[in-house]
């Protein structure tokens, strides 16, 4: 167990910014959602690592990750439900084409 903290954090940072990049560049809603999942995961890893590193005796980071997983599952379910609904209406889920919902 002698992996440096910085290694975890750098992997998390790469994941986070890969997600950011994907969020900016993807036009498919599902691909955008995949990017969001990447970002969430990076955050979860950071919670767990810092919990482990700074407060090994308590479990707040651990549980924060746990709840994060639950919430991302919920978010994914709702988002996919919306996308399927959108697809049913406009036969497409490209972000640029879905402008009918604008006010």
């Amino acid at each position: 167990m002698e992996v440096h903290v910085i290694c975890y954090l750098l992997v998390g940072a790469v994941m986070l910014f890969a997600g950011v990049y994907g969020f900016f560049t993807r036009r498919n809603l599902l691909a955008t959602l995949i990017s969001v999942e990447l970002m969430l995961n990076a955050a979860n890893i950071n919670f767990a690592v810092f919990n482990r590193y700074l407060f090994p005796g308590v479990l707040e980071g651990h549980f924060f990750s746990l709840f994060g997983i639950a919430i991302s599952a919920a978010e994914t379910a709702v988002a996919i439900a919306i996308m399927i609904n959108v697809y049913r209406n406009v036969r497409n889920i490209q972000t640029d084409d879905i402008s009918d919902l604008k006010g």
Partner: protein
Amino acid sequence: MEEITLQQVIFGIVALMMMVCSVLAVTSGKILRAATALLFVLFGTSVFYFILGYTYLGAVQLSVYAGGIVVLYVFSILLTRSDKNMNERIPRGRWFAALATTVAGFVLVAFLLLGHGFADTVIPALEELNPGTVGEALIGTGKYQFVLPFEGVSVLLLACMIGAIMIARKH
């Protein structure tokens, strides 16, 4: 110079795989490949949790994320036929702006991390976290116990389930 342990070797391999796969997940031209890459990233994350000793968290990660969510992705990809239209390019200027922002952000964060002195610290050795402890903390009401957020999340999941059904059902 310390000896390289098995753990470090495994961590290195997994970390490399995760970084490559996360980049693939956002750059791949085919969405099914992107979803697969995401699956590998999620696997890697659970490996991290195992290495950290959070076996219960790793198991949840595997079952919920890798098992549940990715399957959901694959289904919806197939349902919305998204695999057919991933080749549309965004304008070059926007792409460049996105790339520049991302790289700048990464460089900034990396600079902060490296400059903070994390490089020398290692995770202290700890036994594997007992799932029983996790269970008690999850349903206990005392200090450092989490029954209230647990109930909150369960209500949230219920609401989401109902909402997802309401949104997705045919009118």
